[in-house]
């Protein structure tokens, strides 16, 4: 006589609990599935699916009431050949990214070296310098809009005190200076971050090497260029890539400070995507999706090139 099968509920419970295996590196497939399921579900529904849908949208025009018409590569062709605002946005984002990234990492390294030089109150200054990193772009943006104000902003006031009235300027209102004003604000926010990471890397340097350089009567500049920078290379490359990716996607700060204006002088690719999608009242999500897709591949290309280029020369002989 066959044994009666266990009722379904107990079977499920037994399946879920699994039986222990002696090797703790092994686990039944269902256990592994249970551990991964929540992450994979959220990820599939709210990351993979949206990305695929954006790709799908990019080859469609989406009219009112979600009527989708397949247009092939028309969006991309129009974007590359006819859209002058897009190319303006690409140029702005590139300037922003290149200048900002270099300034970020060099500035962070410089500040870290200052604190590394055994100055008084170094710990307190480190904590204060980091505070802008904790503030949101909304807060940073509003504060700097005030600081740049033509009539009562501190920037113009300081220029006045220094007797440089001729340099006083409507910093965010002039297309010639607006982008640079935003770059400076962005730099102000992130310098502390780069400083902390460079400082940690400096403290991790082997003392003997720096000591040996001192014995060889090596000047501080030579020490910086021939010893410190090469030895910090992995950290610096890492920071460059991080800073680069962040700036290629820059949205919040620009949106809050200038909304891309005046005259598209601060328009970035991200703010343009947002405008085309939500501010143009065309309700066509196809075209902005095409911008996002194209830009994603450009970021990927640049980052790959950058890591290849910088990492190849990474094998420095000591």
């Amino acid at each position, binding site marked *: 006589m066959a044994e009666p099968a266990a009722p379904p509920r107990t079977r499920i419970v037994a399946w879920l609990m*699994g039986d*222990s*295996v002696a*090797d*703790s*590196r092994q*686990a039944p497939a269902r256990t*592994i599935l*249970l*551990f*991964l399921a*929540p*992450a*994979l579900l*959220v*990820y599939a*529904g*709210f*990351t993979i699916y*949206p*990305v695929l*849908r*954006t790709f799908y949208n990019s080859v469609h025009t989406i009219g009112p009431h979600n009527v989708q018409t397949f247009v092939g590569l028309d969006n991309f062709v129009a974007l590359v050949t006819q859209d002058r605002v897009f190319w303006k946005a690409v140029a702005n984002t590139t300037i922003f990214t290149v200048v900002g990234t270099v300034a970020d990492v060099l500035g962070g390294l410089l500040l870290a070296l200052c*604190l590394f030089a055994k100055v008084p109150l170094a710990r307190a*200054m480190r*904590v*204060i310098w*980091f*505070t*802008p990193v*904790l*503030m*949101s*772009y*909304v*807060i940073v943006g*509003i504060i*700097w809009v*005030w600081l740049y104000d033509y009539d*009562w902003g501190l920037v113009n006031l300081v220029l006045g005190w220094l007797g440089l009235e001729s340099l006083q300027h409507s910093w965010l209102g002039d297309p010639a200076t607006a982008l640079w004003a935003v770059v400076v604000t962005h730099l*102000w926010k992130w310098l*502390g*971050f780069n400083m902390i*990471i460079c400082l940690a890397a400096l403290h991790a340097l082997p003392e003997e090497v720096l000591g040996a350089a001192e014995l060889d009567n090596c000047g501080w500049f030579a020490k910086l260029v021939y010893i410190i920078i090469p030895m910090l290379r*992995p950290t610096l490359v*890492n920071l460059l890539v991080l800073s680069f*990716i962040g700036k*290629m996607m820059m*949205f*919040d700060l620009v949106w809050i400070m200038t909304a891309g204006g005046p005259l598209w002088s601060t328009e970035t690719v*991200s703010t343009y*995507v947002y405008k085309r*999608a939500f501010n143009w009242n065309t309700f066509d*999500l196809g075209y*902005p*999706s095409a911008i*996002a897709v194209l*830009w994603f591949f450009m*970021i*990927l290309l640049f980052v790959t090139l950058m890591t290849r280029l910088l990492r190849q020369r990474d094998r420095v002989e000591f």
Partner: protein
Amino acid sequence: MRLWLNHLRRTPLLLFLVLYTIVSGGPFLWVMSMSLRTTPEIFDDPYALPVRLHWEKFANAWTNSNYGTYFWNSLIVVVTAVALVTLIGAMAAHCLARYRFRGSRLVRFVILSGMILPPQLLILSLFQILLDYGLYNSLAGLIIVYVATQLAMTVYILEGFFAQLPQDLFDAARMDGYADFEIFWRITLPIGLPAIFTTVTLNFILLWNEYLYAVVLLTDDEKRTLPLGIMHFMGGHQLDVGMIATGLMIAIAPVILLYALFSETMIKGMTAGAVR
């Protein structure tokens, strides 16, 4: 004498340090002082210290300008999203760090590739998808999106830490008859607490400050989070600098309070993703 000369030589360096300290910390103190002054006082002299402390501005902002609602919305969204992403991320990280199984490299690659996806690639279709699911313009929808955006970074940091825990610990637990989930709950989580603190700090700050997803996915005033609330108030009262500053202080205060208490932990948390 030598010491004195040494200091003299370093004067430019010390001056620069003082200057940069003022530049990086000053704006925050300025906003703090403005948050306690009225707008006419500020327009009289924007950079003066408060004469009388107008604490009533905070009560006013909290009730009349809806900052109370914005604050609670932010708190609910951020706390829930951080709790969820920590639990879900820790489970996945534990699994990837502990077990050998087929497809583990693929799973790791897929999840971690989320770190390089630009928000622009997600935001337009998330808008459509949340509309489809009926989650558009709801705090629940924003919470799930936040969990998804922070998942990759969380798994990356936690997995790196969990992988370094000694295997003997887990062999012993297995010998004592712990089931797999007990091992996660009673061993990985308690021992991994430092790394979990790190991801909690990082996620809390990033989400507390988040603007782009919130501005696209929420429309009702009653549902706005703090960054949106501030921008909304700013739109209607461009010239009321005093009240805007009070709003800014309401948004920064929790972060600065935590920073004053746990500055080292927070610095470590914010930089965790960048150090390898």
